[in-house]
């Protein structure tokens, strides 16, 4: 019986490890062309608040026009920077789907990392401040003279609470 349990345990572990197999799509990721990749960095300017390549309004003249311009630029062999400049000149900075990694927009990109770094420093600082000095860690035993029954009871209650789960 123990062996059966052990093997069933092992089988369960393997089943869990193989779980991703069930959820892997049968085919790999479809390759996107360069235009689609660049187009993913701009918004459709029709007001739908969707990324240019995702605007699904049939008959949306704005996205159709923008995609046409994009296709032409990519066919010409324009660089991504040139395409970006073209759209920004035409529509302004509202056309960005993500802020450019330069100038003032760099703040938007760097802020999350700064938050994380500062937060980590803060947490480490808090942990180091909260840590008991070595002397304080050697707690006196329950029978130490001078510890009142009330204090002991409170400590017991606290211990019970803390070990509840």
């Amino acid at each position, binding site marked *: 019986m123990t062996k059966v349990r052990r093997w069933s345990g092992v089988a369960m*572990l393997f089943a*869990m*490890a*193989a*779980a*991703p*197999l*069930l*959820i*892997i*799509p*049968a*085919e*790999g*990721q*479809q390759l996107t062309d360069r235009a689609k990749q660049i187009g*993913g960095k701009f*918004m459709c300017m029709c007001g*739908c*608040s*969707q*990324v240019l390549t*995702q605007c*699904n*309004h*049939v*008959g949306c003249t704005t996205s159709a026009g923008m995609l046409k311009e994009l296709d032409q630029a990519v066919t010409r062999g324009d660089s991504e920077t040139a395409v970006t400049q073209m759209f920004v000149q035409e529509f*302004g*900075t*509202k*056309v*960005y*789907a*993500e*802020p*450019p990694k330069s100038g*003032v*927009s760099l*703040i*938007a*990109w760097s*802020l*999350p990392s700064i*938050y*994380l770094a500062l*937060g*980590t420093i*803060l*947490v480490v600082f*808090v*942990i180091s401040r*909260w*840590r*008991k000095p070595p002397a*304080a*860690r050697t707690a006196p035993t329950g029978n130490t003279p001078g510890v009142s029954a009330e204090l002991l009871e409170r400590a017991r209650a606290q211990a019970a*609470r*803390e070990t*509840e*789960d």
Partner: protein
Amino acid sequence: MDVFGSFALLLAFVCAVYAFAGGIAAILTRHPLLVKSTRQAGIATCCLVFLGTFSLEYLFFSDNFANAYVVSHSNRDLSTFYKIAALWSGQEGSLLFWSFILAIYVFSVLIAYRNKNGELMPYVGVVMAGVQIFFLTLNNFVVSPFKALAIPGANGTMQLVARGDGNGLTPLLQYPEMVIHPPNLYSGYTGFTIPFAFALGALLARYPGEKWIHLTRKWTMIAWTFQTMGILLGAHWAYAVLGWGGYWGWDPVENASLLPWLTGTAFLHSVMMQEKRGMMKVWNVWLVFCTFLLCILGTLLTRSGVVSSVHAFAQSSIGNWFVGFIVIILLVCFGAYVKNRDYLKSENQLDAIVSRESSFLFNNLVLLVACIAVLSGTLFPVFSEWFTGDRISVGAPFFNKVNIPLGLLLLFLTGVGPLLAWRKTSTESLKRNFGWPLAIGVLGGAITFALGFRQFYSLVCLILCVFVASTITMEFYRGAKVIRTRSGASLAASAIDLTMRNTRRYGGYIVHMGMVLIFIGLAGAAFNRDVQKEMQLGSTMQIGPYTLLLQSVDTRPEKNYTAERMIVEVMKNNKPMMMLYPEKRRFATTVENGTMVAIYSTLKEDLYVVYAGQSPDTQLPVIHAYLNPLVKWIWFGGVVVVFGTLVALLPNRRAVLVLSGAQQPVGQQLQHGLTPSPSVTMREGHD
């Protein structure tokens, strides 16, 4: 009914002012009658808000087109079901609905604690009344939903008129989920008022730290559950109605709902530090304050037009009121904190770095960083315009790049945190708890990598999902095994028993398992595919293993709209499988069209078919098909999260003493010369 509703709201405002001012007087004088009367004024406020809301709903049901709000958001042919939803479809009604949900919460709190916590409740009552005054001010004097329809008469005076029919409800809102999504989300937003009221009340009253935390926890969990359901239902609505193939677009309004959810989640974790160790008191108080402030900020973003969003209400000057309210809340919170911060000192210290306490600190850090990152990204266009004159958009690509790593870090902590012990975790314990889950996670990752799974974030996400799922399963297995050894029950029964003995802990694990399922679903987004094609009758399009054949097109007149329906046969590997019916709905009362997406959903993938409209050039129907892997896992995960939260809200089943000796008659025991000293056995019961 117009006048009745309006009068009810006005009276509610007066009662709320009395509850607020009288409550302050009651705190200062400690007069028991004053305390009682202000509590009753609070209850009366709620009842009057209920009356006001029901009277507006009555106007919808009775097709009263003399009311301007009813004219703007309803029409005669609108089904009863959607006439309920019409209440919150516009600015005025949605703010009344906000007051309504808030009144339900306030009413529940005032009734539930009417004879308890006498020291604390007057403070809580004052804070709740303060929040109610703000919203009732808006309902009465800024955006009243009870405005009668009037036109200028010949002599220049305004004359009351009634229209024959209304403008109808926005087509996007005529979908079943829009009847349940906003109430859930509003219940989340408004629900955070209660923890806020308890936190601020406790701080003002210098109430002992642990007590308000105990009182607040379940209210926070209720609000958090509604917020979670609201967010997920909103995502599902966006998926099924907007027809863009996605469920989350990082729209400012979506972000606004996520912000208090993130800080609320952080609070639900850090609150354990205060309960168990008496630590992080200042942090918890400020987390609750921030969560409430973010709820109000979210409302400001949705209603003021500060940021552009497809979900937002019409642009209005109402934002100024919310800014003012936020400033007042900040000042009050800060003042209360400065005055009484001495009461928030930590009782304990940290014993070791590798401990449950540290993991909670890092969990809070990641949640807070995610929150601030989303907030700053959402507001960046506004700030960039202020400082540079140019409005720089921040869209989904930015939020994905920033938040995916944070999400994965959080997922990792979800697996690690619960397995670390309070105070200190030994190396042995680390090996015992993490050895197998880590091995299973790595094995899962190796298998998927070997199979050509190369998308970095999705691969990492799946490895972490396997790891976290393993840690949770092992926790259940270990606990259930101990119970099975003692009771002889099956493993499943033992697992249920285990859960019921400590609902909070194991309910929490179920919530974590739900989050794992949601992350699995999110990982699938990296493999989305789509094809769009103009289709003639009888033509086909291919997406993945599916072939779509446009069989015919029909038009179906319904009561409130006409549906133009595509009849699409789906074949898989050239074998007929099923029919799908994507449609466009053209409403008589509005120029906007509604989209009904046809979805064939399996655990592996969703085949998502949209009738996108007619091509302006060829007049042929355009079909847009998407193949979205693993989306169903998200909705299923959401159900598991809600289930886990409900389990965590249940009281623990407690071991009680039962005298088994009582089964044997005492006289019989005495005959055998036995002293009646019954053996003690344990029986389970609810507390």
